[in-house]
């Protein structure tokens, strides 16, 4: 498992807030994500569908799977094997890497093309492959860009959303061996075509394709792949070996259930009625098939997921990785995904990172939320993300992970708030003090007790008397 980055979230956040190029990229992307989803959801009515009822159906399907996950996994394993695939199990990131490298060695693989897989990010698979002498080539355009930059994806469905067009141009010029040209958004199709030409060579020469799976369908033993660029098709049909690395929670019972979830996933992610490509991959190339791998391997990964079953955070396992929560998150769009320090950013990352890498490794994430619940209200499978973050805050307290000073202060304040007379008296003194600090002004510009507040804004203050003081005086009068 990739370790969380050494810098604290605070330090990373500070860097990101001041990165003007990043801020420009994020501000450009945000209204697109929000607007497209809103349109996609509104368009459901044209088909006589109700989004809230679909959400309930999606929630029910995912809950049904989680209630008997072991059973569904066994059914999937049996059906996938019947179709000719091999099914392997990985407990953690290291086991993913070992298994993939072992499959690669068995088949003499020297180059692997990849379609987006967040699980491979959890395992840091690319680094492990490279170390084993196998060249991994990311083929999703965004993933290709971040791989060239030596970075991790900053968004689960738009990995390079943090990059400006100039940054991409510089990377392409370097990688593709040509001079840098001035670029505008009109050049995006040409740049994409350039990447496609390079990637085509890789598609044709790779011995192995590695993908994730958006869903695993138990009744048919299939992997469902939802993509927009067509690279997924190339990765899954051209190489002789196809390895699918995905989490054990990605199971859905039937094709019918899959169809229901497909009404939710693309709409929530990009606002599309359906993505450009939807592949259902079952088994290996059969006799008479013109294409397809002769070897298909599923690697089903736990990496901390089974621990969440039956825990107060089980709801998180419903996640279908659409990205809507981060697309509607004010914190995500102030920072971008890299600030979150591990694979998953935004609200779902703030829940998953501590749960999968250890609460003590991500103490700030569940607290770095305004509690606005914009995420919870768009989640297509109704994951109560703010509630799950809140439970993590409570768990930090229960496990003694909060600083002593903070606990003492809250304890003292809560005690004081239960002593109304003393509280009133102190509040009255505080009101006078604030008024005095502001002087003749309406607000305090530098407030030593909460410097973080006045770093960015004034603190407007009242008349120097509390409501209860004034109310008591009025009653006496």
């Amino acid at each position, binding site marked *: 498992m990739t370790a969380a980055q050494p810098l604290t979230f605070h330090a990373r956040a500070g860097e990101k807030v001041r990165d003007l190029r990043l801020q420009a990229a994020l501000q450009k992307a945000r209204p697109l994500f929000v607007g497209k989803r809103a349109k996609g959801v509104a368009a459901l009515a044209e088909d006589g569908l109700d989004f809230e009822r679909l959400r309930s159906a999606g929630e029910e399907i995912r809950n049904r799977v989680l209630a008997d996950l072991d059973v569904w996994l066994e059914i999937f394993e049996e059906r996938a094997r019947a179709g000719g695939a091999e099914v392997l199990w990985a407990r953690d990131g290291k086991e993913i890497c070992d298994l993939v490298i072992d499959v690669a060695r068995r088949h003499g693989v020297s180059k692997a093309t990849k379609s987006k897989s967040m699980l491979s990010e959890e395992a840091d698979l690319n680094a492990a492959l490279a170390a084993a002498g196998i060249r991994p080539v990311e083929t999703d355009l965004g993933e290709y860009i971040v791989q060239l930059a030596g970075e991790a994806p900053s968004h689960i469905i738009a990995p390079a959303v943090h990059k400006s067009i100039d940054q991409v141009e510089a990377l392409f010029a370097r990688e593709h061996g040509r001079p840098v040209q001035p670029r505008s958004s009109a050049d995006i199709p040409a740049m994409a075509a350039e990447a496609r030409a390079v990637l085509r060579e890789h598609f044709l020469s790779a011995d192995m394709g590695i993908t994730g799976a958006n869903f695993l369908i138990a009744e048919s033993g299939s992997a469902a792949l939802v993509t927009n660029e067509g690279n997924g098709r190339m990765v899954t049909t051209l190489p002789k070996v196809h390895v699918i690395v995905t989490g054990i929670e990605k199971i859905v019972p039937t094709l019918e259930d899959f169809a229901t979830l497909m009404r939710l996933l693309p709409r929530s992610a990009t606002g599309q009625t359906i993505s450009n490509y939807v592949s259902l991959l079952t088994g290996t190339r059969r006799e008479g098939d013109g294409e397809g791998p002769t070897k298909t391997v599923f690697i089903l990964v736990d990496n901390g997921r089974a621990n969440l079953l039956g825990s107060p955070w089980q709801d998180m396992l419903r996640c279908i990785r659409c990205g809507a929560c981060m697309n509607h998150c004010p914190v995500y769009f102030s920072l971008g995904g890299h600030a979150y320090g591990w694979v998953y950013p935004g609200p779902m990352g703030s829940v998953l990172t501590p749960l999968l890498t250890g609460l003590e490794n991500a103490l700030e994430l569940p607290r770095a939320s305004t*509690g606005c619940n914009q995420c919870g209200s768009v989640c297509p499978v109704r994951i109560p993300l703010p509630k799950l973050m809140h439970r993590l805050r409570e768990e930090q307290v229960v496990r003694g992970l909060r600083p002593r000073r903070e606990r003492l202060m809250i304890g003292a304040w809560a005690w004081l708030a239960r002593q109304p007379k003393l509280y009133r008296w102190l509040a009255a003194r505080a009101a006078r003090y604030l008024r005095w600090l502001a002087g003749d002004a*309406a607000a305090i510009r530098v407030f030593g007790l909460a410097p973080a507040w006045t770093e960015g804004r004034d603190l407007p203050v009242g008349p120097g008397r509390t409501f209860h003081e004034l109310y008591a005086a009025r009653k006496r009068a």
Partner: protein
Amino acid sequence: MRVALYVTCLVDLMRPSVGFAALRLLEAADCEVVVPAGQTCCGQPAWSAGERAAAASLARKAVAELEGFEAVVVPSGSCAEHMRKVWPELLADDVYWAERARTVAERCHELSSFLVDFLKFAEPRADFSGSITYHDSCKGLRGLGIKKQPRELLARVPGLRLTEMNECEECCGFGGAFSVEFGEISTQIVDRKCESIAAAGADAVVGGDLGCLLNIEGRLRRRGDNRTRVLHLAEVLAGGSDK
């Protein structure tokens, strides 16, 4: 109707005029208003920090002092949401308190929803002239479904024009302790809100939660906007300043 006014700790300390405005509105709606003397804080800050025991102790204290009223009115969607939704959950496993907390929670109302949904109150005594834009605070909006109530009330104020800002339902970045613990991120978020407010070009930005309003006002002033007034809904509806 005998109504308890729970002014909130923030209004008590930072802006008493909101409490008096709420008081005048309730009296104008023929309520017998009592301000329970022992009230301090609903406990949301402790709850947000994950301090369940401290939050529960404050919930018990508040439930005990609010039990005798037909209704409890709060000029804050955030506090009202905490009282209505979190108190019963916090005390659900406490045999002695669970039922009492549920009963009191059901009687707690955010001010605008109390006036519109509960009292069907029609006549604010406002004397506002000019344009305003309304910021929907998160907890009231997404937690309690408060959206049309403040707008219905504002629509009845003669001389007041409502100009909706872009993304009025976006968070302002306050988030209680969040604004201090993650000040830089909070500033980044409230900047977007300030830009929406500026683009709406209204004389005042109005909202139903003092926390958000202090955050927005503080940032507007720091950005050099000394013109746009920042007002609580109650202050607009009750008319006349009473600071």
